[in-house]
C-alpha cells in the first residue's frame, strides 16, 4: 500500500471518527453498561456477582410473554396498516391535479408534530366522552358516554394505533413518494409502449423499484413503535403494558434491586428487535427476488 493510499485511508477514518465516537461510545457503551446491570453486575449498589437469574425470573413469568405479545402486536398492526394506507397515498400524490399542492402540504403536516401532541388530540377526540361522542350525542345517536365504543385505555389499543397511523402514514408515504419521483414516468411509459397492462406496469415495473423503500421505511416505523414508551403509557391499559413501559417503570422505582430486572427486560427487548430485524432483512431479500427486483 502506497503512502498516498495510506493517507487516503486515514482521512476516511478521520471522517468517520466523530460519528463512531458518539454512537459507539454512547449507544454501544450504554448497551454494555446496561447488559452488565441486567446480569446483576452493579458495583454502585454493592452487587458484583454475575447471574442469569433476572432473565430466568422473567422468562418463566406469564406476564412477560403477555407483555411481549402486546408490544409486538401493537408494532406489527400499526406498521402493517400504515404501510397499506401509505403506498396508495404516495401514488395519488404523485399525480398533479387541481389542489394537489394543498394535499401535498396537508400530507406533510403530521411529520413535524410531536407524538405527545397527537396523543392529546386523539384522546380528546375518541374518548367515550370525547368530541366524536359529543357529535353523535348532538345528532341524538347516543345519550351516555358509555354507549360510545371504548377506544382509549382499551385492550386492543385503538387510540394508540390511531396516534401511530396519523404520524407514520405520511412518513412512509413521503419516503415512497420520494422514490416514485426519482424513478419518474419513463420506465412506465416504456412498459406501456411494450404493451404492458396497468397492473403489469405496477407489478413488474414500479413495485420492484419501490419495494426496498417500502420495506425499509416500514422497518423504521416498526422499530420505533416497538421501542416507544409514552404513547402506550398515556393511552393504554395498565396491564399488560408493553415491554418498554414495564422496563422504564421498574428502572424508575425507588427500589434499586429492581434495576437488573428493568435492564433485563430492556436487553430482551433489544434482542427481540434484532431478531426481528434479521428476519425482516431475509424477507426483504426474498421479496425483492420474487418481485423481480435487484
Amino acid at each position, binding site marked *: 500500500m502506497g503512502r498516498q493510499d495510506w493517507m487516503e485511508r486515514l*482521512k476516511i477514518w*478521520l*471522517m468517520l*471518527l*466523530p460519528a463512531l*465516537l*458518539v454512537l459507539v461510545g454512547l449507544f454501544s457503551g450504554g448497551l454494555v453498561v446496561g447488559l452488565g446491570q441486567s446480569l446483576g453486575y452493579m458495583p*454502585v*449498589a*454493592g452487587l458484583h456477582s454475575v447471574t442469569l437469574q433476572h432473565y430466568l425470573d422473567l422468562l418463566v413469568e406469564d*406476564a412477560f410473554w403477555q407483555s411481549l405479545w402486546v408490544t409486538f402486536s401493537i408494532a406489527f398492526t400499526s406498521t402493517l396498516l400504515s404501510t397499506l394506507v401509505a403506498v396508495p397515498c404516495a401514488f395519488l400524490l404523485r399525480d398533479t391535479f387541481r389542489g394537489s399542492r394543498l394535499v401535498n402540504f396537508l400530507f406533510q403536516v403530521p411529520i413535524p408534530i410531536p407524538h405527545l401532541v397527537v396523543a392529546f388530540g386523539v384522546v380528546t377526540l375518541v*374518548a*367515550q*366522552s370525547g368530541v366524536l361522542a359529543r357529535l353523535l350525542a348532538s345528532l341524538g345517536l347516543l345519550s*351516555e*358516554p*358509555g354507549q360510545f365504543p*371504548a377506544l382509549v*385505555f*382499551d*385492550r386492543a389499543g385503538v387510540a394508540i394505533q390511531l396516534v401511530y397511523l396519523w404520524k407514520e402514514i405520511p412518513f412512509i408515504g413521503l419516503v415512497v413518494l420520494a422514490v416514485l419521483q426519482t424513478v419518474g414516468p419513463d420506465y412506465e411509459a416504456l412498459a406501456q409502449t411494450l404493451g404492458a397492462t396497468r397492473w403489469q406496469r405496477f407489478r413488474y415495473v414500479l413495485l420492484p423499484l419501490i419495494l426496498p423503500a417500502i420495506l425499509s421505511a416500514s422497518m423504521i416505523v416498526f422499530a420505533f413503535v416497538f421501542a416507544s414508551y409514552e404513547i402506550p403509557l398515556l393511552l393504554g*391499559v*395498565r*396491564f399488560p403494558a408493553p415491554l418498554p413501559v414495564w422496563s422504564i417503570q421498574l428502572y*424508575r*422505582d*425507588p*427500589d*434499586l434491586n429492581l434495576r437488573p430486572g428493568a435492564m433485563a427486560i430492556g436487553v430482551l427487548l433489544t434482542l427481540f428487535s434484532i431478531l426481528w430485524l434479521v428476519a425482516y432483512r431475509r424477507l426483504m431479500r426474498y421479496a425483492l427476488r420474487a418481485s423481480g427486483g435487484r
Partner: protein
Amino acid sequence: MNTPSNWLVFVTAAVLLLLSGCAAAPAGAAAPPVYTDWDDVLAAAKGTTVHWYMWGGSDKINTDVDNDIGKTVLARYGVTVNRVPVADIAEIINKLLTESSAGVTAGGSVDLLWINGENFKTAKSADLLYGPFVDLLPNSRFVNWEDPAMANDFGTPVEGYESPWGHAQFVMEYDNAQVGDTPPTTFEALAAWIRAHPGKFTYPAIPDFTGSVFVRHLFYWAAGGPTPFLGDFDQAVFDRYAPQVWDYLNGIEPFLWREGETYPEAAAMTDLLANGEIAFNMSYSPGNASLSIAQGIYPDTIRTFVFETGTLANNNYVAIPFNASNPAGALVVANWLIDPEMQLILADPARWGWLMTVDPTRLSAAQQAQLAGYDVGVATLPAAVLAAKALPEPQGEWVAAMEKGWVEQVLQK
C-alpha cells in the same frame, strides 16, 4: 476532498474537548454544612436559590407555590425558590439513591423535596436525608409534635428529618345529579350501588397514591378498624384480612367502568367524572371538589362525603437531601411553610383550600378568628366533620404489601 477533513478536525477537537471537559468536573466535595443557630441560617440563605422538587401535575398548586411561597420568601429572606415539577417524587428518591451509590455526597441538584409515606421511609432508611433539622426551625413551635399522627409519617418516626406543610384527608367525590343527595357511606352500600349502576364506578390503578389509599380503607373495613395495621408488618395478619379485600374488589370488578378491564390514572378520573362517564372520584384533598368547580373543571353538581367508618388522613412534609447544595435556603423555605401567616393562606378555601398542618390552638386569637371565619365552599365538608372521621395511616410496609397484593390478586387476575 480536503474540505470535510479540515472541518472534521475541528469537530473532533470540539467533541473531545467537550467529553474531557465533562470528565474533569470536580469530584465529591465536603458534605453540606450543619447549622446550630437560626441567624446563621438566615445569613447563609440570603441571595441563594432553593431547588424545590415537587409533584407538578396541578397548575393551581404550581401557581400558588410561586405566588404565595416563592414571592414571599424572596421578598422577606432574599431566597429564590426554583420549583422543579416532577411526575412522581419516587423518581427523585431513585435519583438520590443513585447519587448516593455514585458517591455524590455534596453539590446535589435537589435542595428540598415534597415527600411523605413510603418515600420518606425509603429515604430515611437509606440515609438520604439531611438533618435532623426540625428543632432549628423557629416556627416548629406551632406544630403539635406530641400528636402521634404528626410525629410519625405512615408509622415511620419523623425524628426531625422532615417538616410538615399541609394536612390531607381522603374524601369521596360524587355527582349528585347521578347519585342523589344520599351517597353510599358504607362499603356494603357502595358495593350495592356499584352493582346497581354498572360502569359508573372505578378507582385509580395502583401505584397511584389515591388508588392505594382506597384499597387501604378496605383493609380497615375488613379488620373492623385500623388497629392491626398500625404496628410492624405481620404476614399472618395480612393473610387474615387480605382475601376479604380481594374478594370485595374482584366482586365489584365486573361492574366497574370498562368492566374492570383496566383502571384509570387519577388524573383521567377528573375528566371521567366531569363528563358523567363515572359518578364518583376520590381525593386526598377535601377542598379539591370546590376548587375544581371554581376552576371550571367540575360541573357544580359535584359534592363530597366521608365513610361512616372514617377516612385516612396524613401530613405532607418537606425534607432536605443529604447532598443538598443549599440546605440553609431549604431551611428558610421549610420554616416559612409552617408560619401561621402562610398556613392561613393555605387553609383559605378561596386560595389554596388545603387543611392546616399547624395546631390551630397555638395561633393568636386574631388568627383563630380568621380561620373560623372562612367559608369552606359548596362541596367541602366542615373541618370538624373531617377531623371526627380521621383515621391514622398504616406503617409503610403494610402499604407496600397491599399494593403488591392488589397488582397480583386484582389487576393481573
